[in-house]
């Protein structure tokens, strides 16, 4: 797990469900095949309504020069991020698009589990509602160990919630390496 992540923010609102993160028509790709894993990056966030895509203004494309990888590294969102289906393709799509962390008020539990157990990205929780304080394109620096976020564009600093009990799983890189380390798997 990276302890510091620096990159541009892509800002979304509340209840961003897994259909918006990766629409069902693309679930035919098999994430276990590397060339197909890459395809999820191309369609990540493709069902977010344009007015809600890249807040506060909206209508900001998630991809620019590269059709597979987004120039944004951190998603900042509101409540209940990743609600809806159990598709692991959702954190996979964000990972494939180059997202290293999400900062949301809280997560739907299956998305959170999948992010942690699959080791795709770091799901951080903010203390105050940051999706209305950060603008898409702002340069952010996350210090995961210190659970803080520094907005390098505005100079503001924010406290985040500690990762708590999932930190060891994320540090190990997911549930398999974690279970191996803790002696559950041979």
């Amino acid at each position, binding site marked *: 797990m990276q302890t510091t992540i620096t990159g541009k923010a892509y800002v979304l609102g509340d*209840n961003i*469900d897994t*259909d*918006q993160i990766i*629409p*069902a*028509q693309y*679930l*035919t*790709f*098999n*994430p*276990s*095949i590397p060339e197909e894993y890459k395809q999820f990056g191309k369609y990540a966030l493709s*069902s*977010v*309504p344009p007015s809600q895509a890249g807040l506060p203004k909206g209508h900001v494309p998630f991809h620019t020069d590269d059709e597979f990888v987004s120039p944004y590294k951190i998603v900042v969102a509101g*409540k*209940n991020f990743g*609600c*809806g*289906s*159990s*598709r*692991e*393709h959702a954190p996979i799509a964000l990972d494939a698009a180059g997202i290293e962390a999400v900062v949301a008020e*809280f997560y*739907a*539990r*299956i998305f959170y*589990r*999948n992010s942690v*157990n*699959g080791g795709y990205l770091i799901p951080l929780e903010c203390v105050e509602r940051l999706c209305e304080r950060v603008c898409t394109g702002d340069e952010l620096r996350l210090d995961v160990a210190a659970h803080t976020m520094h907005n390098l564009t505005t100079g503001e600093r924010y406290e985040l919630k500690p990762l708590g*009990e999932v930190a060891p799983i994320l540090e190990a890189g*997911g*549930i*398999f390496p974690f*279970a191996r380390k803790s002696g*559950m*798997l041979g």
Partner: protein
Amino acid sequence: MTPMTLTEKILAQHAGRDAVGPGDNIWVDVDVLMTHDVCGPGTIGVFKQHFGKDAKVWDREKVVIVPDHYIFTADKMANRNVDVLREFVREQDLPYYYDVGTDKYKGVCHIALPEEGHTRPGEVLFGTDSHTCTAGAFGEFATGIGNTDAGFILGTGKLWVKVPPTMRFVFHGQLPPYLMAKDLILAVIGDIGCDGATYRAMEFDGDGVYALNIEERMTLCNMVIEAGGKNGVIAPDKVTLDYVNARNKHGKAYTPVHTDPGAKFIYEKVYDVTKLQPVVAKPHSPDNRAAVGDVSGTKLDRAYIGSCTGGKLTDFRAAARILKDKTVKIDTFVVPATSEVAAGLKSEKIGSQTLEEVFLSAGAKVGPPSCAACLGGPSDTFGRLNQPLSCISTTNRNFPGRMGHKEARVYLASPLTVAASAVRGAITDPREYLE
């Protein structure tokens, strides 16, 4: 000993502990793991990556594979994914596989599981689908997981879970003929919000619940995920046991579990079902509830009756009560959840017509059993919203893009309300068509 809720007791038993409490992280033994064509290939990939290409699943009797999502499509990738399942089943010699194009084909996994005897009180069921919570209607702990967790289970038969606190919803009274379980669960989700049960169990109780048939109880538990719930559960009674025993053809022993007197709930709410109204969830969230009366007359382009939520025989019986001798004004799609439900449409009659004849003579289109357009799917999926249409649907989600086009507007409602709205071409209270 500290009293426990039904959910806590099942989890404690499966962790080999005397007691657990909310917030405890525990490893549980899994009774059944279910996967399907959308998440199965990824799950199999995770399993092989971590346990080796020649690894065997932990217990072939406990794995159930149900292709159901993208079945009747020309999409090559979707068809390839079913081939991946087939190959895995052959290689592992798995007994419970319901293959496409054979007599064993079922359709929607959450309805197929109980029909084929894979749901039993007191068990722990994980599935790679968020609506796995449906099986809580049988008094078991059932929840959705991703590919990584499912791959882990395939190899070990275990998974870590955090014990959820339980919310209790009590329904009293006899359900009026114009209401269905769908109205009850939309009322609950409207009250607590689509994140109101995040990380929590939702237990349904009260004479209003035990008066429901098993399919209606499944509808209640099915949509707990739309409130963020980890699982929904209803204590087993005679209705449950009669259904389970008739279907438990593998003869597997099970032990019904009930909430202890004095168990602690984090939240409790009591409803008088006689005072509730038919409701819809407006676009674009399942908690965006409105009384049908408040949105009556809203123009629609399409109606859809199907899915794990609203594609069971009880749902079609209800819709047929309204559609009998009527004509639909808008495109209306009927998709039985499973082959057993499809057979029921052909055998069960209202007067001289079968349910299927009622739908066809009303002008509805009847498709083959699968998840179909509930979640959009490939562009040739039966009933998919390929245009920004307004649709009223018996399904479970109406987030942007869920049924296809991201600007489509989806209203969720009971089969009665959907059928009444199909006849008028606008949102309509079913009481207008019921005697």
